[in-house]
């Protein structure tokens, strides 16, 4: 694994995120609330990348902005799933988000502090897997459509599930591998970035499906 390849994969990851933000902007007013929140989530996700690019972080502690970003990101994703399950389980979403917020700050202040900060990310992955399963459970109960693949949120949920399930063990052991066993983080993080690219691609499928639906809807009066 070369640093060059790692950089290329990281760039691809950022470009895809930018593309998703642009894609969400297309027919923004006609898009469903989930897609709007998702666009906000990706726009927000670009900020750390921009901060690292624009602000010289060498020698500075970037775990702090990273952790703040993680906490805020989970708030947005909680909102996304809260909207997706049609406002059900309000108490659960609030408790989980508040719990995560408290854990995130405890972790950065008392547990991992300035070391590689992966416990917050691990908990975030567990929470997101739970959200995805909860959303799928609601789909089974409510049966909103006959063809699930036409629902954009089905794809977004699939993307989050694949990414978080794939990175859970990675996040859980990264700290141990790097700090105790002095292993090379590059290969693990490249794998993480590849999973992130897969996640973004699946999200784009969902956005594309919604765009198709919006276009067919806008063509309807002409057909009639």
């Amino acid at each position: 694994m070369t640093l060059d390849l790692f950089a290329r994969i990281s760039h691809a990851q950022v470009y895809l995120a930018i593309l998703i933000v642009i894609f969400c902007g297309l027919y923004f007013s006609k898009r469903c609330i989930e897609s709007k929140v998702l666009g906000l989530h990706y726009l927000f996700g670009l900020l750390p990348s921009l901060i690292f690019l624009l602000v010289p972080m060498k020698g500075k502690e970037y775990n702090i902005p990273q952790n703040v970003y993680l906490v805020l990101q989970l708030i947005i994703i909680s909102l996304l799933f809260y909207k997706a399950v049609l406002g059900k389980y309000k108490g659960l979403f609030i408790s989980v988000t508040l719990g995560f917020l408290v854990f995130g700050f405890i972790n950065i202040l008392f547990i991992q502090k300035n070391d590689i900060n992966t416990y917050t990310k691990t908990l975030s992955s567990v929470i997101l897997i739970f959200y995805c399963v909860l959303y799928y459970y609601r789909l089974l109960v409510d049966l909103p459509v006959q063809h699930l693949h036409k629902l954009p949120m089905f794809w977004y949920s699939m993307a989050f599930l694949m990414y978080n399930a794939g990175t859970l063990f990675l996040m859980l052991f990264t700290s141990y591998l790097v700090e105790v066993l002095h292993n090379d983080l590059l290969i693990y993080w490249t794998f993480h970035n590849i999973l992130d690219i897969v996640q973004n691609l699946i999200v784009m499928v969902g956005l594309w499906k919604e765009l198709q639906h919006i276009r067919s809807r806008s063509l309807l009066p002409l057909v009639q």
Partner: protein
Amino acid sequence: MEGASAYQVALIVAIGTVVMLLLAAAIVLFMLFYQKKMAQEQLKRQRLEMDYQQKMTLAALESQENERKRVAADLHDSIGGMLSTIRVGLTTVAKQISDPQLIEQQKQMLDDTISSVRRISRDLMPPTLEKFGLVEAVKEMCERVQSTAYIRVAFTEHGEFRALEKNQELMIFRIIQELINNAVKHAKSSTINVAFNATDKLEVIVEDDGVGFDSTALLRHHASASRGLGLFNIENRVRLLNAHLEFDNGRKSGTRITMTIPL
């Protein structure tokens, strides 16, 4: 030792990741297949419920028709028969008394009552429908309405009309009867046109020149209790016939209702 441990941890990470990814994929696949199955079952259940409701409606309409038939027969055979006997008796009495004019008014009233009983009996179950079919029954109904309600009721027929099943003809007759009644009672119309266009489907048009009505508002209150029983019965019969009912909204006055029945 450290190398072996690093290898073991990396292996755990790799296996854990693969297992988690497989689990995620399994959840997604399970969702896709199971939800589809559930949706299909729900659709099937809805179809069964609709079938059941349709059967119930049909049974209710059939029992209504049977009841009408019974009442019509009782009116015609029993009351009608008795009134006719009384009429004969009165005529006999009139011949025996010195001034027959004394009971002339009673005789006239009795004649009117006999006519009313016949008319009610015919409205309840038109014998023409059973004997000569739908077209003749509708023609006769138009003539009768024209003579009693003093409204011009025209009937036209285009194409070759093939006889339908008895219960279908009865349902179509009832719909037309209800539409004509509405035009007479509520529309204040002076002319009613009833037309049959028979091609590969039967098109029945009932048109009047009355005050008209807001069909959009009527359909908006589709589910409300304010909808009349007449319209409710029309809708039920249309559904049972697999027919389509269309209200012409683009008219300045009057109403044009087209019912299309697949043959």
